[in-house]
């Protein structure tokens, strides 16, 4: 049975980065990708704006990811495409992986696994849309696949539910291809996507955004003919009497992304209720020894640059774990209080690399000015002022925890308070 140090599942930006960095550490790496080509969802994200942090350029999705593919190939990393993992078992400290591809059932053995399985879109049923079930109800990613990969027009006149980034990007994309986007409806009182996308995808094209509105019902037997829109109250429940019918042939949903962690769950990995991704430490290791997570499988990122970064860190850590550490070491929880929507990682490893810890967080409420506090054992050890903190826009922070003299009983608490002068 082929034997590896690091086996990466998923060949999108996270998996590619993870494989590259593990390989650079000298590990024997295999990457498995279920689709025909590497690149993950970026293959269909033809819009630009990727890589601004990493490359200082506004690249399209394919341009961004193909740079990593090239590096991946230059390093001669082993990989399989059209290969679907069907089973993972842990046995005496090694993982046995079963996958299937055109050559048959494949079995591999590995010391560590990096889960870079990305995320999936929430569906119409998960946001309780009722009525008939005609053709013409698509998630934004599905519509994007039709337009950008198949060159097909799934819409002529459409309504978009949810102001997530893919929804906004698709509003512009469909408009450019000649469709009419009637409007974008968001159930929350604030938009979900990046502000720049509201400007360059909606405002530029005169597409209205309706906050505190939702689609309550769809109509049509063969193809969609209309949707019912209603205003919602503070608890996001439709307000009776505010319903209005909007004629359209397409409903596009951009109502959230869910990290794909069915494989992690099958390995007994604990998930964080807020991120829906694994609970991990700053080495990106989950609570199962040797299982690492990165990219959108760990938490939904809004910038691919951070996806690549987490992959890189996870790859390096997996290589280190396999080669030298062998044990997970001591760790303490990183407690985020209720002012944060979430904080990744959820634990701090005290033994391996506390000096350059990358934290990713989202605050819960929009704050014009806020201060991030980090407390260790009751003492404030770090503060940073932020302005324009918005839940849709994730923040990244690099911290040196090495200087705080932490021990196995230390308590670390992270919170965000209102106020403070703008930086």
């Amino acid at each position: 049975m082929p034997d590896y140090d690091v086996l990466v599942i998923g060949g999108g930006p996270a998996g590619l980065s993870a494989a590259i960095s593990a390989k650079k550490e000298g590990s024997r790496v295999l990457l498995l990708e279920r689709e025909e080509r590497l690149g993950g969802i970026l293959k269909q994200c033809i819009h630009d704006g990727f890589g601004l942090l990493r490359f200082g350029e506004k690249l399209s999705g394919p341009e961004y990811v193909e740079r990593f593919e090239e590096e991946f190939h230059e390093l001669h990393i082993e990989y399989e495409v059209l290969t679907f993992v069907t089973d993972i078992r842990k046995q005496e400290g090694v993982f046995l992986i079963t996958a299937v591809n055109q050559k048959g059932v494949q079995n591999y053995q590995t010391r560590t696994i990096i889960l870079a399985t990305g995320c999936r879109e929430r569906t119409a049923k998960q946001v309780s849309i009722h009525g008939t079930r005609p053709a013409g109800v698509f998630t934004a990613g599905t519509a994007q696949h039709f337009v950008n990969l198949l060159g097909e027009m799934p819409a002529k006149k459409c309504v978009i539910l949810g102001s997530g980034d893919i929804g906004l990007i698709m509003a512009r994309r469909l408009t450019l291809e000649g469709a009419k986007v009637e409007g974008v409806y968001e159930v929350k009182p604030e938009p979900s996507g990046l502000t720049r996308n509201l400007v360059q995808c909606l405002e530029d094209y005169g597409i209205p955004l309706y906050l505190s509105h939702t689609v309550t019902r769809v109509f049509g037997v063969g193809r969609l003919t209309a949707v019912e829109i209603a205003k919602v109250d503070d608890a996001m429940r439709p307000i009776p009497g505010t319903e209005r019918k909007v004629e359209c042939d397409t409903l596009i949903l951009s109502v959230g992304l869910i990290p794909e962690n069915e494989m992690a769950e099958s390995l007994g990995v604990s998930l964080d209720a807020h991120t829906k991704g694994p609970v991990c430490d700053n080495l990106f290791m989950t609570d199962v020894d040797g299982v690492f997570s990165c990219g959108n499988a760990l938490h939904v990122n809004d910038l691919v640059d951070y996806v690549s970064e987490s992959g890189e860190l996870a790859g390096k850590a997996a290589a280190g774990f396999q080669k030298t550490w062998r044990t997970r070491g001591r760790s303490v929880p990183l407690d985020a209080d209720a002012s944060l929507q979430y904080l990744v990682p959820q634990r701090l490893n005290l033994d391996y690399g506390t000096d350059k810890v990358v934290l990713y967080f989202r605050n819960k409420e929009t704050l014009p000015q806020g201060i991030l506090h980090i407390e260790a054992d009751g003492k404030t050890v770090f503060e940073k002022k932020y302005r324009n903190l918005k839940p849709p826009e994730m923040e990244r922070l690099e911290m040196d925890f090495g200087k705080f003299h932490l021990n196995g009983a230390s308590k670390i608490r992270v919170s965000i308070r209102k106020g403070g002068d703008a930086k």
Partner: protein
Amino acid sequence: MDTEILEKKLNRKLKKQFGETVNVTIEGKIIRVSGHLPDWDTVVKACSMCVTKRPGFHVVNDLVAEGVHIPPMRIPPIEDKALDGKEPDVLIIGGGISGCSIARELTRWKLDVLLVDKEADLALQASGRNDGEVHPGVDLGRGTLKQKYVVRGNRMFGKLCEELDVPFRRCGQYVGFTDKSAYSFIRMYAWQRRYICKVTDTRLISGDDLHRREPNLNPDFKFALYNPSAGCVCPYGLTIAYGENAVQNGATVSLNTAVLGMEVIDGTIRSVQTNRGTIYPRLVINAAGVFAEDVAAMAGDRFFSIHPRKGTNSILDKKTGSLVKSISSIKKLKNNAAHTKGGGILHTAHHNLLVGPNAVETYEKENFATEQSSIDAVFEKQKLTAKNLSERDIITYFTGVRPATFEEDFVIEKGRKTRNLIHCAGIQSPGLTTAPAVAIDIAKMAVNELKKQKEVSRNKNFNPRRKGIPQVRNLSEEERNRLIHENPDYGVIICRCEEISKGEILDALKSPIPVTTVDGVKKRVRPGMGRCQGGFCMPLVTKIISEDLQVPIEQVKKSGEDSVISFGKTKGVR
């Protein structure tokens, strides 16, 4: 004389409750209720009040509900002469579980069998929109056709599903009771079901025993009624399998074919008009579900009425499958309104949980729209069955419409006024369970009828076995490897949630009754049935269909003719 008394009695009863706008006349065994009432629920109530237990009597509803416009039957947007001039021995109207099972049983004889359905696939109405339970029959009283067929039907499932290569599991049914004081009553009830109704597997188990078997059920259950013979099957899977086996044995299935009218002369159907031409059958079988009354009317033989009753089921993520491994529900002796099904929790043949259905009267026979209120009501009740049940695990939901008669029983008999007609009507729950047994009886009735006109001999080539499409995810490594080496497409996974290969999808497109739509493929091999609901695989399936049929993607449909997925190529090319 007797009926005159009944007529008077019913008129008195109705007029007392609803006033002078309603009237009952009894002619033959037809109790005809006419006049007008303010709304549909009142119409149903009035008709239900006229039901009598006298054998053969049926309520026919001629009442008008004020302001209610009953939508006409939806007709497929296709018109051609594909069936024009056909002279089948038997024309079966309806491609649900009844029609398909009858078609298969009829192919045991050398007969020209034609089955038509107006929908784009088999099992698109009630047969594809139910919970898939194979009932033990424990809830049915004596003397009904439902009860007559349910135990017989249930016993046939093991062999039948093996022959038709359809997954079936006898997972057992538990009906839990929280009220200890009901024990003696339920013990009597169980005894009666077991020894009088011959539902011989019925037994009572203790709360402890129940919790050992199903640890996640309500800890307050003191005891449960248990029927190990209960099972679950994929209802549309079985219907399609029956249809395919019928086709393999010589029957013809014509989809997108709606019956629009009949020419009846001297109590005989001479011809049947469809959107695909005029058919001249020797015998017609009415298995038209919610439209069985309409078909009976066309044939001049309307002696029963259908009052549609819709129910909604939710399907939960497979991850929750271990919560309940059987069919479980809660029963309270009080406040149990007639016909109100609170549903249950069922571990499906595909290992999801199914929760439901509820029951709501409707005049719209084809309104499959779902409502949040239905799901809320069912979950409220079923959280009493298993408290960890969560709406958050719902991946999809659907509504079906039951074709109930006012007698709440089946109509399985020859035409009363029309000679060359057999009705298989009012087939609601447990119609899936009874179908195999009913089909045998109806096939016998049909053959006896035809024998009056021609010689009918056995079909010596009849093969009861139908080979389904391999489910590669369930194969052993060895078998899976063998299959992939024969055809590498079995190694290409298209649907990641349900682990469906390209090979299986191509098999579905080549199956005996190919339905080359996204939904047709989904029903046969399940891509898109999982938690992402086709978000990832739907464009891929669309592309595979387009390549296999060698048509542009814009010609691939979701389901029916007008369910367009793509409007054409981008770049303004129209």
